[in-house]
């Protein structure tokens, strides 16, 4: 069951001109959230902007005893609502509804878990990586961004034991180009009898390419899709994704309650 919390901002860390990490005091939501789930957030108090916006849960914040005290959001500033979240001050109140949606399916060793993230698509990967590592799964993160200074939290993932494969569009960090190129090479190099599951979050084009690549190599792949959402609860039918129907054709599912994590092989991409 989701909780609706008037969450206090406990910290706001600007990572760059566009990105920030907003820490919220929302223990009930943090306690209940599992990797891949999201929250619906509203920073404004008035009617403009009006609607909440969906955000993946980024970190689960814990106290010294390990108890969940809150969660953070990884935010990329693109519009008015994300601008308000970029500018939020400690002590501000933010309405936060969650946890919502379907989580990732966690694999077990001996399968490897390969995560693919583009830009702000890093958001659900933090808790996913923690959960996979905790199960003893060997993990790799294929992580692409526009520039080197937008590849965040590399030390966190290294310390956790996640192997990193980095790309940037301008070549200022890692390999130049898109993250799909090294992913394809790694999949081609992996023997068929060594299982691997893929998890992807990022721009739609990257998700589609990851899905195609996974299918070409016969590997399971889950993607966390991003759609414009109205309510996050299944009420409005705004955030639909076309899924393959038995016997051909498609049907629309609401990504807020059937997703945001969906089986890439079932999505009608085009």
């Amino acid at each position: 069951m989701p909780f609706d919390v008037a969450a206090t901002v406990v910290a706001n860390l600007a990572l760059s001109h566009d990105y920030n990490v907003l820490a919220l005091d929302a223990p009930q939501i943090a306690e209940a959230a599992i990797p891949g789930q999201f929250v619906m957030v509203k920073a404004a108090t008035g009617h403009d902007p009006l609607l909440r916006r969906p955000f993946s849960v980024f970190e689960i914040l814990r106290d010294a005893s390990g108890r969940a005290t809150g969660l953070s959001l990884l935010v990329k500033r693109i519009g008015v609502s994300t601008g308000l979240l970029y500018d939020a001050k400690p002590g501000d109140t933010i309405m936060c509804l969650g946890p919502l949606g379907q989580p990732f399916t966690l694999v077990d060793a001996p399968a490897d878990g390969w995560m693919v993230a583009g830009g702000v698509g890093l958001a659900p990967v933090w808790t996913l990586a923690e959960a996979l590592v905790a199960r003893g799964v060997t993990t790799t993160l294929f992580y692409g961004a526009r520039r080197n200074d937008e590849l965040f939290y590399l030390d966190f993932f290294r310390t956790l034991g996640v192997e990193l494969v980095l790309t940037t569009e301008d070549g200022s960090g890692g390999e130049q180009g898109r993250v799909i190129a090294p992913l394809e090479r790694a999949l081609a190099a992996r023997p068929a009898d060594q299982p691997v599951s893929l998890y992807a979050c990022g721009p739609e084009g990257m998700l589609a390419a990851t899905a195609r690549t996974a299918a070409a190599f016969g590997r399971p792949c889950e993607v966390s899709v991003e759609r414009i959402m109205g309510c996050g609860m299944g009420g409005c039918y705004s955030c639909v994704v076309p899924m393959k129907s038995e016997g051909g054709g498609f049907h629309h599912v609401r990504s807020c309650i059937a997703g945001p994590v969906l089986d890439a092989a079932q999505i009608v991409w085009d």
Partner: protein
Amino acid sequence: MGTGQQAPVDLSVRIGSLTIANPVMSASGCFGYGVEYAGMVDLSTLGAVVVKGLFLKEREGHPAPRIVETPAGMINAIGLQGIGVHRFISEKLPELRERRATVVVNVCGTTVDEYAEVSRILSDAEGVHALELNISCPNIKEGGIQFGCSLGGTHDVVSAVRKVTSLPIIPKLTPNVTDPASFARAAEAAGADAVSLVNTFLALAIDIESRRPKISNGMGGLSGPAIRPIAVRMVYECRQAVKIPVVGMGGIMNARDALEFMIAGATAVQVGTANFVDPLIWNTIVSGIGDYLTRHGIKSVDALIGSVDMGKH
């Protein structure tokens, strides 16, 4: 002091043969089939749960993006995605019954016969308390608004449904006409038990970089606080034109807004877009109405309905 539950006021209202415990309903298409919210909201505390529009068959609706936010509002073109009347009865209605929800089904059709057929099927199902006839969806080509924009079409749909059901029928009127009150009159003459309004206002938002509409269907329907004063005016006009109850909606965000509609003439109200912002809004609005009545010493909702004094200031 007094919350809605403690207040010594009667919040019940009548819509035809149906008495509902309080005048606050969910607006169709803004509350799924109700069951989506059952984990958070006690569905029996709403005056009624009005579910998403249903045709005879399943429909997939328009591709995403289906909504765009606009100043103090939103434009949607969902395209009436839905599971069809048969799956609704087998998959959703049992849970709604179990949760003791008062259920109003929003009925859609591409032909007069389809409205009648869907209504007939729902009348035989246990746990449906009233039918709201959606003759006002701006987002689909056939059906819906073609009936709601013609007085003859409105009459035909209402009288065809009247022949097949004894449930209260509530045609839902479009604001996309010059004189909604004449449509309320047509509906009353054809045997409607109430009218509800407003559905959304036909609207367009354009991305100036791509010079393309911001939602896939091009145009859509505007809802939210941006439309409220126009909706209040239309509810007032309909109240003046007909004897049957008027169910008012359009941008209600809180108890104050709901009371404004009731004072203009709404017997009950529906809340749509606001539920997206605050899924726990129901108790806030219901108890706020109770508090207001208590504060003004008004014993029942009936005394409030249509009580606006339009004399010059």
